[in-house]
């Protein structure tokens, strides 16, 4: 790989590194060259750890030459969303409140990626405390979309989405409370997996809403997400919500095709409840045809209206966020960005009874989804309504502008991935979302991987990354 050459996927790079045909030092340097060339336009990094990256790449290369790679992530350049704590490295949450915050301990996800031998390129741009955004009144500017820098990346894992799409890193950590992995994946044209709640530890990651927060992989392909998830998943005593569930081989079923798979289309979500743009609709229709061609059985499935899922998740999110940040809201309100101030204000309007009714509704919706999926392997809908809007066109109160397609699977805590399903008239990506049953990430990844390999969308990078 060179700064102006092809960007390998994580999986391709891992195979080449294992075969000693790709140097982690050269790979890291090529990624750094891209950062130097593109960062001024993308704002993907809050903190670039160049010296550390080169040192880790050199150490990794020496170890690989001596005894082979520890894992497919060994020698792979990665980034961490800047709400993930990193020992000895500033973790700011992109907030004025934490500009000098230097943790003494790694978040579990950061520690696991380091143990797998990854090369840390730096801390990535986020909406402040993974909320609101895009904001222009923060210590750093918002990330911009590599497909067109006038356009939004979505958030809150905005820097991860931009950096992966532009080839600055091969994969990175995102977090997802209502769609913050899948939204940027959708608008930046990459793959982003929100795992089952509790599968990946939240320890050491600043919360947005305790019961809706998920940590997960963002990368160019579903296969890359599988490799990254392998390093991340598993019980953690530091996270009280950590699931005691065995971790399978997430790559074992990749490439096995879709013959006999049962796929449900939540058609009313994207055709009636919130009608998507024509390019997104075409992407879903084409995906259904592709799945059928690959031997899957596809049928429609009906759930409660999208707005019900959105209302349930939003009320829970508003309340849990207000609780998490209550002390700073009382004492340092003016130090938050305007967008986060607006979110925190809402906490004053949701009563305890409102919250409990939302949690009770959540239980009903979870049961409804489980019943609807009893004879299905996955369900699909849109990943986003259409192409990325411009940064100026993002609504001031986006929570009330429209429901989003990602929240249902935060409410249910079930795994869901966003993958690129084509391009719209402005040349920006559109996205398909594939969701599965709890702990069935391997099934979700299998379907996503088959879709990516049956279509040509992974061959197209943002022009600026060429």
């Amino acid at each position: 790989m060179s700064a102006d050459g092809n960007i390998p996927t994580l999986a391709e790079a891992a195979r080449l590194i294992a075969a000693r045909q790709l140097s982690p030092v050269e790979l890291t340097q090529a990624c750094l060259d891209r950062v130097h060339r593109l960062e001024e336009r993308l704002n993907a990094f809050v903190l670039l750890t160049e010296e550390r990256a080169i040192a880790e790449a050199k150490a990794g290369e020496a170890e690989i030459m001596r005894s082979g790679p520890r894992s497919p992530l060994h020698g792979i350049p990665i980034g961490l969303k800047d709400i993930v704590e990193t020992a000895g490295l500033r973790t700011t949450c992109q907030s004025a409140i934490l500009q000098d915050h230097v943790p003494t301990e790694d978040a579990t996800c950061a520690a696991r990626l380091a143990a797998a031998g990854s090369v840390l390129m730096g801390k990535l741009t986020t909406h402040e405390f993974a909320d609101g955004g895009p904001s222009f009144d923060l210590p750093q500017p918002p990330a911009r979309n590599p497909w067109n820098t006038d356009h939004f990346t979505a958030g809150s894992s905005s820097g991860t989405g931009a950096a992966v799409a532009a080839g600055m890193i091969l994969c990175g950590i995102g977090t997802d409370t209502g769609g913050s992995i899948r939204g940027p994946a959708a608008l930046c044209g990459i793959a982003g997996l929100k795992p089952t709640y509790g599968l990946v530890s939240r320890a050491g990651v600043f919360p947005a809403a305790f019961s809706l927060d998920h940590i997960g992989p963002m990368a160019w392909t579903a296969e890359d997400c599988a490799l990254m998830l392998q390093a991340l998943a598993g019980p953690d005593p530091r996270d009280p919500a950590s699931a005691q569930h065995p971790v399978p081989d997430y790559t074992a079923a990749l490439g096995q095709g879709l013959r006999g798979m049962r796929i449900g289309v939540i058609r009313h979500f994207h055709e009636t409840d919130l009608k998507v743009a024509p390019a997104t609709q075409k992407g879903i229709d084409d995906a259904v045809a592709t799945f059928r061609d690959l031997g899957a059985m596809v049928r429609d499935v009906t759930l409660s209206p999208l707005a019900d899922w959105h209302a349930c998740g939003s009320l829970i999110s508003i309340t849990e966020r207000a609780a998490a940040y209550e002390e700073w809201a009382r004492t340092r309100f003016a130090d938050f960005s305007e967008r986060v101030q607006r979110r925190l204000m809402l906490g004053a309007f949701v009563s305890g009874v409102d919250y409990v009714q939302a949690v009770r509704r959540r239980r009903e919706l979870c049961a409804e989804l489980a019943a609807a999926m009893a004879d299905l392997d996955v369900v699909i809908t849109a990943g986003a309504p259409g192409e990325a809007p411009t940064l100026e066109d993002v609504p001031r109160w986006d929570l009330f502008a429209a429901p989003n397609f990602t929240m249902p699977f935060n409410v249910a805590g079930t795994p869901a991935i966003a993958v690129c399903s084509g391009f719209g008239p402005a040349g920006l990506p559109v996205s398909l979302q594939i969701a599965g049953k709890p702990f069935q990430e391997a099934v979700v990844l299998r379907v996503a991987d088959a879709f990516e390999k049956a279509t040509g969308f992974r061959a197209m990078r943002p022009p600026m990354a060429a």
Partner: protein
Amino acid sequence: MPPTTIGDETLAHLLAEAGLSLTDAQRQELKTVVQGLAAMKARVRQPRGPLAELAHGFAPKPEDAA
């Protein structure tokens, strides 16, 4: 449907209880979203009796995947 408007006195009380110090402009803007919040609150209220269980936290079990 919960109330879709809010008076200055009620607003002041809720904000004081939350310990938030807002500007006048923020107070006025906040009034504009009360209707949206009310719609959300209505959507989570279903005909359900007192025996309907509260799920205090979501923790999928392995058998959920069966």
